[in-house]
């Protein structure tokens, strides 16, 4: 599976996924008069959400059941040692000994992608000098992607709550701050597309990334790009019927599902791709969202010299004892004037 094959395959799969609702909701009714809106609008989304939640819980429980036998944090700053050696805020966060420090470290890691922020790029080719350049682009792309995605998701609460939580209109206001178009253009959607494109181009243009990337890396990028595109098309181009859509989505969350009239195909396309993303999530690398919280190199404090960390399956000690060692070397030890526990047997007894 090389880069080109992976691209073709993941692109092909996403294209097929796009074709399915097109066929189901657009072609079938027109050609055969069969209506499958209930399948794409109700059944598949329900299944996807069930797989999503059950899958994530199952996976997290599986991880959680697995013991953490040793305390193995990556210590990225000075340890807490002698009282006069500086152990300030930076050290507490990067080499924590307390729970508060760990919480701080995790918050920075989860919300700010701190480790990624430290990224550097090695410049090294045919010359002899290795130089290190700051490399914040991946961090910036990742931040843009994740936060825009979050904003987009929060904005979508408009469709699943009645009345809307107070923050949704605020987010919409801020997100649509630059009102250069009607309907209001939300920057988050455009930025999300841009960030995804950057992450994709990065995989394609950097030879190292191209070498390591698998289908599982291209596929989610293509899938989310397709979701973003259908969303943008729906909002700005096809101007979907928001009232009917809200009727459908509210029906889903209140468990009184309905398929109102007049919802365009593009909506079914969008919700189908989102369903695929939900169902795919627990089986994929996207589980890093939950996994990051459990990472033993980040969520443990470096205090194993202060407090004993307990390994639940610690095997009983088996080692070469001092007695066995002395038996092996007793005469040599006595000759060398080293103290021994037992005196050497007399030559007669040895016979």
């Amino acid at each position, binding site marked *: 599976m090389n880069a080109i094959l992976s691209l073709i395959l993941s692109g092909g799969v996403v294209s097929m996924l796009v074709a399915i609702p097109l066929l189901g909701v657009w072609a079938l009714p027109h050609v055969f008069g069969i209506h499958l809106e209930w399948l794409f609008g109700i059944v598949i989304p329900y299944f996807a959400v069930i797989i999503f939640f059950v899958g994530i819980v199952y996976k997290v429980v599986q991880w959680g059941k697995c013991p953490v036998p040793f305390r*193995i944090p990556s210590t990225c700053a000075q340890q807490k040692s002698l009282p006069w050696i500086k152990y300030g805020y930076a050290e507490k966060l990067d080499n924590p000994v307390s729970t508060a420090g760990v919480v701080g470290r995790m918050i920075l890691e989860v919300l700010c992608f701190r480790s990624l922020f430290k990224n*550097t790029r090695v410049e090294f080719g045919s010359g002899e000098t290795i130089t290190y350049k700051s490399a914040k682009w991946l961090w910036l792309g990742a931040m843009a992607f994740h936060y825009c995605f979050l904003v987009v998701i929060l904005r979508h609460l408009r469709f699943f709550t009645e009345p809307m939580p107070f923050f949704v209109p605020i987010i919409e206001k801020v997100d649509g701050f630059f009102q250069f178009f009607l309907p209001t253009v939300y920057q988050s959607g455009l930025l999300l597309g841009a960030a995804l494109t950057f992450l994709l181009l990065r995989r394609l243009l950097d030879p190292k990334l191209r070498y*390591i990337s*698998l289908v599982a890396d291209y596929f989610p990028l293509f899938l989310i790009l397709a979701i973003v595109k259908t969303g943008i098309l729906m909002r700005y181009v096809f101007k979907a019927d928001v009232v009917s859509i809200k009727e459908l989505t509210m029906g889903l969350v209140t468990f009184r599902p309905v398929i109102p009239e007049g919802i365009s195909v593009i909506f079914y396309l969008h919700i189908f791709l989102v369903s695929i993303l939900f169902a795919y999530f627990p089986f994929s690398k996207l589980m890093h969202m939950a996994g990051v919280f459990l990472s033993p190199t980040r969520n443990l404090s470096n205090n194993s010299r202060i407090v004993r*960390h307990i390994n639940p399956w610690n095997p009983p000690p088996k080692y070469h004892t001092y007695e066995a*060692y002395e038996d092996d070397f007793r005469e040599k030890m006595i000759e*060398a004037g080293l103290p021994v526990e037992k005196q050497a047997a007399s030559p007669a007894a040895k016979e």
Partner: protein
Amino acid sequence: MADIPKSWKVAPPKAWNLTTPEELVQDTDHRRYTLGLEKGWLRTAPDVEIKKGMHCHAALPKRLEDVGMPNPRNWSVMDEDWKLPKNWKEIVLEGFKDRLERFRSFKLFMDICVRCGACADKCHFFIGSADPKNMPVLRAELFRSVYRKYFTTAGKVLGPIAGARELTTDVLKEWWYYLYQCTECRRCSVFCPYGIDTAEITLMGRELTNLVGLNIDWIAAPVAFCNRTGNHMGIQPHAYKDMIEFFLDEIETIIGYRIEPTFNRKGAEILFITPSGDVFGDPGTYTAMGYLMLFEALGLDYTWSTYASEGGNFGLFTSHDMMKKLNAKMYAEAKRLGVKWILGGECGHMWRVVNQYMGTMNLDLAEGSKMEEPVSPITGTKFENAKSTKMVHITEFTADLIKHNKLKLDPSRNDHLKVTYHDSCNPARAMGLLEEPRYVIKNVCNNFYEMPPNTIREQTYCCGGGSGLNAGEDMELRMRGGMPRANAVKYVNEKYGVNKLACVCAIDRAVLPNTMEYFVPEVDVTGIHELVANALILEGEKERTIDLRGEPLPGMEESEDV
């Protein structure tokens, strides 16, 4: 020294069979994968060329028999047939499953990598070899691909589309080759957004290879020696004492009187344990002399042990069980001798074990002993950070002495030195021992210069020979891995005239002299306590004319004693 194999001695540069550093560096084109048209790595295991100079020799059967490890036999890496047990695949997969259930780290790190590539150019072996399988992410993917095939539904059903591949002998050989091209230095884990630690994956990988008898002699021999004689070098008790007595002769020449340390003495307050490499080989020996002189100056109530005569732990590079087995001697001996606490010498992976594993694994053995929270008998300082394990790092101990003005020092004796400090990977990234060594160096040397920030502290580079790869036969691997460190040393050498590379690791002291000889011959390697002892003024010593290496001190070049 009877048990030391002949191949132990590092061969002279001519026999390294290496091109010049310039040519070696020319050969590191990181942009060689240009089109994406090549075979994907999932299918390239059969193409892996096991290159001479890039791997260590296979373990001799005797080593495995000595410690009861499976499948002892004579085999060679260069042979087609590695003489695996018939059911090797079953053993490996069963072992894989068992470790997935016992280590959350392993399970999680198999599941959550997104292949963002942040770790790719953080590995010294990738930088120095440009082999794409040395990118930490790919090294781990070699295992993840097999994990997906046998332990995930998607991988079982979709195979290569889900990034899964069969475990074949080619894959096993590929595993082996790249497992033993990782020094488990954890530099990649600093940059990973999820903290994925390649060392954790290669530790498990090495456990798996050891289940089917694919060990390297450079690790298996020290493990077998350490089990029987108490130290990696296989030094027997009488010889250990002899070697230290040789240092006492040397010290006598330097300070004018003889000091009398004790061995295996019951009732001592402190047990001192240091890597046996420092008793065995230069320049570590000078560090060992440094300890002896420091303890003499303090009148410390301490003892050496010939039974627990190893600080290092090549069990860490073998399996968790072996690590525990070898480490157990420290507490067992502390209890037998009735000491209050343990003082540990300068060593790298030893401190990973002491900080992250020892208490968890073996503290039970200290039950009923006289051990208590360590207190410096000289300054009264309580080492609260070692309250549970009761083992203190020598630079913590010495930094505290200097802070309390308990040492008479003449740093000008080190004025001919321009020193830089190499953070050893494990004390830096598995402990956070960053300031203590610097504080000590700055107080015993007047000329100290840091290397560039991307190459020190938590971002420090491995010497290229850690985790049991400091053999003679893999010299090319060591030089390639040592390239980023050497590059940083060269930088401070050219900029400030640095001529001394200080470190707190016995493997560094064994590995870096070769690396320096190859890349930056002007620079010499030293332990920190060699610098301390040179500056240290002992009561009643004669006027010093030579340093610990027998070379004239600055301003003493004309002295008669020299």
